[in-house]
């Protein structure tokens, strides 16, 4: 009886392994991992999909294959691309996805949806809009690291230390789904035969509506999130000043005035002076701080006014109003938003002036 039990166990396990053995396998030499995808509009409601897959020639040497074709849907496109590829194309390693501006104007939700549905794709994929053709942009990018790592690093260091706010698939998807806020994405273009991060593209729901040059995006970034390592430049007739190593903290306060919400965004940041073309920075720190505060407040309120005119809300003002008000009413907010009073208070602290006085 006991023997029978073990024989049965053995048969079960063996047959289980045997039958599941026929499952399709994915051997690393027999697949091509896509690292970058790009989508452009094409004729007759079609899209042109481009994928990049790296092939490792020798240690440290990567050659990218680029496949491109037009089709009606993302996966129809994949069928055509597979027809060109020597090995099966798989999604698991996607690092960056690019969307042509024209496509973004029509709405890109349909081309992003599959990224978050596929369990093999993580939430940290970088999305971006391209000013011209995504195919051309991908073609232009040349790097010994392979395009996947190249774009990943390019976007990543701009998020860590540059003017680009924290944005990836998870965060884009989150603001896209959200009832309260509108998403944004980095926008790339070509300049002098090189790929360049040019601006931040703002969306109304999933449709591209406006852009902000990356040089001016520091204000948006400081308003949007707590910055760990940012920078801010200011220039007037007498001097230029550049504040680096900014650490900022923001909080949003909502007051109710006669039933209308009044929003105050308080921004506090600390930084050190890295460039100052005037005289005696150490003695004039307080003055410079005031000037920068004024400048920042002005620019920030201009930016917010622009958002209000476009009726988009990338800063999630509505989310803050909603979460601080039990009587929040969506219709009422929507009506009031373009005229809403949104003030920015800034507190700048310059801690060091570098190695010079």
């Amino acid at each position: 009886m006991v023997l029978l039990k073990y024989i049965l166990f053995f048969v079960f396990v063996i047959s289980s392994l045997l039958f599941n053995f026929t499952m399709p396998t994915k051997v690393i030499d027999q697949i091509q991992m896509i690292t970058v995808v790009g989508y452009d509009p094409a004729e007759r409601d079609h899209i042109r999909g481009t994928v990049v897959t790296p092939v490792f020639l020798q240690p440290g040497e990567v050659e990218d294959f680029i496949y491109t074709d037009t089709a009606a849907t993302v996966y129809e496109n994949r069928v055509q691309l597979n027809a060109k590829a020597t090995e099966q194309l798989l999604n698991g390693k996607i690092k960056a996805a690019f969307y042509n501006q024209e496509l973004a104007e029509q709405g890109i939700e349909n081309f992003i949806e599959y990224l978050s549905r596929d369990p093999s794709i993580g939430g940290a994929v970088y999305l971006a809009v391209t000013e011209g053709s995504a195919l051309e942009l991908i073609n232009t990018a040349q790097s010994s690291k392979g395009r996947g790592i190249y774009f990943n690093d390019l976007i990543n260091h701009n998020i860590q230390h540059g003017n680009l706010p924290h944005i990836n698939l998870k965060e884009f998807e989150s603001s896209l789904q959200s009832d309260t806020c509108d998403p944004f994405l980095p926008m790339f273009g070509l300049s002098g035969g090189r790929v360049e991060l040019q601006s931040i593209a703002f969306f109304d729901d999933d449709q591209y509506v406006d852009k902000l040059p990356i040089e001016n995006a520091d204000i948006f970034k400081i308003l949007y999130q707590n910055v760990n390592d940012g920078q801010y430049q200011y220039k007037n007739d007498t001097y230029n000043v550049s504040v680096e190593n900014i650490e900022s903290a923001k909080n949003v306060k909502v007051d109710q005035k006669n039933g209308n919400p009044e929003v105050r965004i308080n921004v506090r940041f600390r930084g050190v002076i890295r460039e100052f073309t005037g005289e005696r920075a150490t003695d004039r720190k307080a003055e410079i701080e005031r000037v920068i505060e004024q400048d920042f407040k002005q620019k920030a309120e201009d930016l917010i006014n622009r958002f209000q005119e476009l009726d988009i809300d990338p800063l999630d003002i509505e989310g803050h109003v909603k979460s601080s008000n039990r009587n929040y009413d969506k219709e009422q907010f929507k009506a009031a938003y373009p005229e809403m009073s949104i003030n920015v208070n800034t507190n700048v602290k310059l801690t060091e002036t570098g190695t010079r006085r």
Partner: protein
Amino acid sequence: MVSIKDKVQQLMVLFLIAASQIGVGVLGFQSIINKYAGHDAWMSVIVAGVSVSVIIWLMYKMLQHDEKGDIVAIHQFTFGKWLGGLFSIIVTLYFLLMTVVVLRTYIEIIQVWMFPHLKVWAFLLLLLPLVYYTISDQFRTVVGVCFLGVVYPAFLIFVLVFPLQYADITHILPIMDHSFKEIIQSSSLAILDFMGFSTLLVFYPFIREAKQSQKYAQYGNLYSTLLYVTICLIAYVYYNQSELEEVIWATLGLWKIIEMPFMERFEYFGIATLFFSILPNVVLYMWSSVRMLNRTFGFEHKKVAAFLSAVLFIACVIFRGREGVNILNDVTGRIGLIFLFIYIPVLFVIHFIRRKVQKNGSS
């Protein structure tokens, strides 16, 4: 009577209760319980935990009066041989259905996240010897599995720190934006994840000095409630509410954001580890149904175990796809709610009256 040799320490009740409550539900309950209470649904989990605690107290009150002390004995005492037997069979079927739900949902997760081509029946052949091995012999084996099922996946809680960098506290503000009624309604959905503790009705006689073990059962419930509340809160600050409506497995979705230099996708590791918290559910429910059939009809334990394993196999193969699993989950959820919050209190009252009547009659 269960011999002292087969009994387990009181402390093990903690692991039995905790392991039975933490199962497949933990992977996706966040987007189910917010149906009524929205972003306040994490409070419903606390309400659910407290009400489970009350039910555990009721169960102990009921069980400690009987020397054999399990639900079959209570049924026979309360309803007599035939009616009691009938109720025992219904409860057995409920446990068996729960086994199917847990196992089938886990297999679905494997199919969606890891191996879309997995042959369910062939996978079950691999699993069933393990289940049979665990349930066919002594209860201690089941307890061992439950102990590991709590200890082993516990480290996964640390992994939940990663999603916190995307946390936005405004998603759960303002607190108490929903009425008490809505929170209670949502808590009735949250209860579904806690239902495993009902096996206490069966394994009670296997605990040494079971009467004093209630505090461990309550600690076990406290542990799983805290775990659920933590996971729920993390998911609620990570996702916004409209995003939650799109995701099926919110907890697994939290892992999508994790990036480690040596591991591209954490879910593969996580899902594999979660097997250790699924297995206690499966074996505990299975063992309970086997034990109940054994107690009601006196069938040999091993034969019943083999028979029910075969039933489990067939049932798991029959249910297919998202809809099948969903229907299964809904139905068992409703049955479980009736079982715990209507049947158990009613049984308690009838049992209480019956006991009083008999005491008066005998004295």
